[in-house]
């Protein structure tokens, strides 16, 4: 074999597609040409059956009689399945066994799955599903979280975090405020609805294509439902058309149903939800009612604070335990709360079971504390930003969270100062005051809000990841890891990590569909942890192969291992260089293994759920944003005029992708707090279940003046993958500034005499209501007590 070893100097050109480069999304060219295959685009097997789901019409009822004969008799129908047709476990709940695949007799929300019908066409199945004759015995429903608290109706026990003596601190404080806040939930509104296709294989095995953030869980749930084991089921997902947490636990229902139909009929089966069914049947961000009491001094420094959260969890536990834990963990946001009590009720209501959504409970906790800080400022007639700063965590002192984690990486002081200056906060604030004094009907408002967001799954064991990497003899690489691609650019970033590690151009790397048979037992791609975990695992897999190659090269070229260097598609061994491919070939002939797994677990974290204390988070991500808005006080309509964002991504793995996450997260958060309203009628029916009634932001809602910057030279203090930081969730909460700018504009409608009662989402209706209520209140001050 001709080694063609050469001598010469290494090129210092960076490898094409290494870390830090603003590379396009790996599927970008497929997205724009229509060539990207989503689950519904995968060529369908012959005799594929289409499945529709028959659902409950009542929020709380016993099924007295379910007559499916008309369904079965409908044109095109092949099979009908109900609870009694499940050979295994009738549950898809991720934590507790309280989410039946088909209702076994009790229904607990409008839209709950009762049966499935499989037909030759999608339309035939949907038509047939509407023909069931179901007799219900109606039971009294609980439709809102406050009612649930009154009735002590909970999916999980109430939890409390406390530190210091909040009662005493409240009593002693100079000023005192209390109130009740409401904030709405949010539908994920991924553009691709839920979908799964199950294809039977030999010997009862099943291949399931699912649009899921958690293939491993689909594998387990499908196995349990079919009465099989994990080894019998393979789950694959190349990409999702958006997920945002909505495809963490929810896809299991549809995957199980597809698999059950496939098992029973022997035909491949597809469940694809129509948008209305998707929105009615699947969980959303939890809506909350929050009671608070706060005591503070003349500068607005919080001395004691108490929160009581009531979250609408819906009919089952789903992920609500962890979601509400995160709400509690983020009730401080950026602020030091010395004496604090946080009580969290996980309310059981007869509505759809709420679930993960970008931020995972964090946004609600941050909403609450930001609201309170704003109330304090308005009460004291101080600039809310000043009160925010007064309460910021310190760097050396006042730096321990209510759950006893010491914050070691606080950069908010500098970050906010930088944004305040670049965003002309002070100057604009005074311009706005001037404008408002002269303008009768239009009022402008401004706000700056900070974000501190804890990174890691709070359930410590989930902070692990695996990867699988093969190097082929032509020098190309097949890469797989436990993460899933939902548009966030995970596959691109992980490929960049591997390109960097192996020092080969990224186009030599094929990143492949998430597949439970390649990487087992993977956690959900969630908690912003995708690239932190999978990037590390892939890096370790690559490093293992690289180390073997290095060892081989050292031996082959008779140099020390230290003298072997991988750089830009070449390998230098002492004075000789070969191409990466050549080295791989040599190694192959020398029978060196060119395949490896990689495994990573996050260091340092530990946490005791019983006491709610420890270090649940490896590190924090930070950011801040300023919004300026204008409100029409005759109609409540408004526009966001300008937004300035400064966000911390650590040392970015891919600035283009990170910028996309920041901007996209911000706009999504803005939707949550402004136009996106979930509305149930008094029969427990969700009436905002399609884009015609549920309004997510559209292009014109993007402020004309939108200035977004990633914080520069901000390497993560912790040893994360190339010192980057997670960026999936934190930017969503930057949008709190939009809500507070609206509140500021509303306050201007009554010359800032009092603080408006504005609830989220701040729809035009909510804004007008707040304006009118504030004006009606006149000059009366909010209830105050002096301690």
């Amino acid at each position, binding site marked *: 074999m001709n080694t063609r070893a050469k001598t010469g100097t290494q090129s210092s050109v960076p490898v094409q597609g290494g870390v830090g480069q603003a590379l*396009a*999304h790996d599927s*970008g*060219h497929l*997205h*724009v*040409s*229509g060539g990207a*295959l989503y689950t*519904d685009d995968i060529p369908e097997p012959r005799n594929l059956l289409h499945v529709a789901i028959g659902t409950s019409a009542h929020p709380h009822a016993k099924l007295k009689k379910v007559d499916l004969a008309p369904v079965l008799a409908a044109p095109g129908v092949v099979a009908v399945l109900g609870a009694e047709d499940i050979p295994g476990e009738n549950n898809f709940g991720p934590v507790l066994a309280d989410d039946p695949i088909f209702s076994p007799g009790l229904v607990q929300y409008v839209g709950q799955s009762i049966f499935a019908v499989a037909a030759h066409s*999608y339309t035939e199945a*949907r038509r047939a599903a509407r023909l069931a004759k179901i007799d219900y015995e109606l039971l009294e429903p609980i439709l809102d979280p406050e009612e649930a608290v009154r009735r002590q109706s909970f999916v999980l026990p109430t939890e409390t975090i406390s530190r210091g003596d909040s009662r005493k601190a409240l009593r002693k404080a100079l000023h005192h405020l209390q109130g009740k806040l409401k904030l709405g939930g949010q539908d*994920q*509104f991924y*553009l*691709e*609805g839920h979908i799964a296709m199950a294809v039977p294989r030999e010997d009862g095995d099943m291949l399931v294509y699912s649009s899921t953030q958690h293939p491993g869980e689909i594998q387990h749930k499908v196995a349990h439902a079919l009465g099989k084991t994990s080894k019998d089921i393979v789950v694959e997902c190349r*990409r999702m*058309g*958006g997920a*945002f947490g909505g495809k963490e636990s929810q896809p299991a229902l549809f995957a199980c149903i597809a698999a059950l139909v496939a098992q029973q009929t022997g035909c491949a089966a597809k469940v694809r939800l*129509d*948008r209305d069914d998707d929105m009615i049947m699947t969980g959303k961000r939890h809506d909350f009612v929050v009671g608070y009491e706060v005591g503070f001094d003349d500068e607005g420094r919080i001395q004691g604070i108490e929160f009581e959260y009531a979250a609408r969890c819906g009919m089952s536990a789903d992920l609500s335990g962890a979601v509400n834990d995160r709400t509690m963990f983020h009730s401080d946001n950026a602020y030091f709360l010395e004496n604090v009590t946080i009580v969290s009720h996980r309310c059981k209501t007869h509505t759809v079971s709420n679930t993960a959504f970008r931020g995972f409970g964090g946004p609600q906790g941050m909403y609450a504390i930001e609201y309170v800080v704003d109330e304090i400022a308005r009460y004291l007639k101080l600039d809310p930003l000043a009160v925010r700063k007064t309460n910021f965590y310190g760097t050396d002192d006042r730096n321990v969270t209510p759950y006893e984690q010491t914050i070691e990486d606080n950069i908010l002081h500098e970050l906010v100062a930088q944004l305040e200056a670049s965003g002309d906060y002070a100057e604009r604030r005074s311009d706005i005051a001037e404008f408002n004094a002269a303008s*009768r*009907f*239009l009022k402008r408002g401004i706000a700056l809000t900070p974000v501190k967001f804890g990174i890691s799954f709070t359930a410590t064991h989930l902070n692990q990841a695996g990867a699988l990497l093969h190097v082929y003899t032509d020098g190309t690489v097949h890469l797989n890891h436990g993460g899933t691609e*939902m*548009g*966030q650019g995970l596959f691109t970033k992980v490929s960049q990590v591997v390109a960097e590690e192996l020092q080969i151009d990224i186009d030599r790397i094929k990143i492949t569909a998430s597949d439970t048979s390649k990487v087992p037992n993977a956690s959900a791609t969630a908690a912003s942890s995708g690239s932190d975990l999978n990037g590390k695992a892939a890096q370790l897999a690559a490093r293992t192969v690289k180390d073997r190659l290095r060892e081989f090269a050292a031996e082959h070229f008779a140099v020390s291992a230290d003298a072997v260097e991988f750089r830009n598609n070449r390998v230098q061994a002492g004075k000789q260089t070969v191409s990466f491919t050549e080295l791989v070939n040599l190694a192959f002939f020398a029978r060196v293994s060119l395949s490896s797994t990689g495994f990573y677990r996050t260091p340092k974290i530990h946490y005791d759920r019983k006491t709610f204390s420890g270090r649940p988070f490896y590190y924090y991500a930070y950011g801040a944003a300023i919004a300026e808005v*204008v409100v029409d006080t*005759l*109609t409540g*309509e*408004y*526009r966001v005029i300008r937004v300035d964002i400064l966000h911390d991504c650590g040392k970015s793995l891919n600035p283009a*992708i990170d910028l*996309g996450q920041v901007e*996209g997260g911000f706009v*999504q958060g803005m939707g949550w707090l402004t*136009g996106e309203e979930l509305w149930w*009628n008094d029969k427990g029916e969700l*009436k905002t279940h399609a*884009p*015609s*009634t549920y*309004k*997510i*932001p*559209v*292009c*014109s*809602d*993007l402020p*004309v003046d939108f200035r*977004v910057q990633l914080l520069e030279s901000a390497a993560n203090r912790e040893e994360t993958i190339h010192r980057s930081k997670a960026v999936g969730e934190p930017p969503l909460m930057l949008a709190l500034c939009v809500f507070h700018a609206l509140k500021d504009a509303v306050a201007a409608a009554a010359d800032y005499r009092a603080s408006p009662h504005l609830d989220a989402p701040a729809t*035009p*209706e909510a804004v*007008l*209501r707040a304006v*009118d209520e504030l004006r009606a209140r006149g000059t009366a001050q909010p209830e105050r007590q002096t301690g």
Partner: protein
Amino acid sequence: MPVTDKRRADPQLQAVRFLLDGEIVSLTDIDPTRTVLQYLREDLRRTGTKEGCAEGDCGACTVVLAEPDQSGQGLRLRAINSCIQFLPTLHGKQLLTVESLVAADGTLHPVQRALLDCHASQCGFCTPGFVMSLFALYKSQPDATRRDIDVALAGNLCRCTGYRPIVDAANTMYSYAAASETDGDWTHRAGGSAGDQERVICRKLVELADDSTLSLTSGDKRYFAPRDINTLAELVENHPDACILAGGTDVGLWVSKQLRELPTLIYTGDVADLQTVTTDDACLDIGAGVTINDAVPHLLEHYPEYEELFLRFASPPIRNAGTLGGNIANGSPIGDSMPALITLGTRLELRKGKTTRELPLDEFYLAYQETALQPGEFVTRIKIPLPESGREVRSYKISKRFDQDISAVCGAFSVELDGSRVRDIRIAYGGLAATPKRALECEQALLAHDWNEASVQAAMAMLDRDYAPIGDMRASDEYRRKVGKNLLYKFYLETSGTSDVASVYEYAR
């Protein structure tokens, strides 16, 4: 694929003929309510075009239709929502999808390249729809402002990007070199000028559809697409139970969402007489089949005050398909054109068989989703009086979102002052009653009164007598009441020059 005369004569054998890219497609025995999206995805497995909602509201299914323009020499392009467009309505048109824009050698179209270079896709599910909306913009406007971009994309939702990179792509797409010879943007192809290429396509399209009525039968379903008004009148009279199909932006959803069977459809989109707009001394006369997007410029020429109203009416793909006649005939209590048209004193021309009659628009609505149309009768023309000097008109739409949202309340006002006194006033609202409806009590309270704050405030209170609105997912009854009153107040402020009121949308630009 030549079609024999026998086929043309025999309705059983008639075919829907259209161009897909450059190829002629001829389809027989199709379910007339099959959507273009179902055809693409399920029949052709051409899966680039996506379904995100199946109700015209997300844009994932956006495709572009090309038709000969009025000159017959050039092409007119329209983005539409394929999820609610019935397949037979493609007859005589060219259908272009995201795949059409990629050259045979894989070269991407400038629109696609710009999106790629701007990092404008994350999950990518919305992207094909954005490609097609931007393609329509690219072809229709040589240089777009941010406002034009917002307008062009009002019907496309993206949940991932937050739109900034998409706006960037829209701004930069013009700077890319023209695409290659074989891509779907045939106007760029070599072998002749853009005009030549368009003429070739036009000729093909004209050959596809002749002047006879297209009639299809599939099982027990029938579809007719007449080309002249007399045939239409005859068909409608002979099939009084038929569903008249115009743009299908309401009817499409009956099928895609309510799964309704529509055994007989009579399509008005090919009836030439319904596509005309004329103006005489007294009135602007719009054919019932004119799309919203085609009708609006004529209306705005006379009534520029309605610009914002029609910007907020649905989205470009819906306005490209939906007709003014359909909006009026559908008679939704939250339809947006009617309050304004009522206050202008619009009259409808109706036809049944050979008989034609006229009716003031405000007498057309009898009750919730019930109109004065008799069985076998249809709307032919909308006759809108031209502006009178001294009359002030406005119409304001209120909804949760500026773009592509259904009104919570839509208020329309028209006042003529005699000095400071109200000589004539017409006020109508959508969203406050079961039909678009005039506020007669409120009008009475103002008529012959001074146009001042006190009388307007008094009249605002009278709206509670005119309307008892309901609360639903779009707005509570209190908000509807309150904002309804405030809109009258806003109208007063704007017409009395007493204040600095302005639209927040204009302000924020």
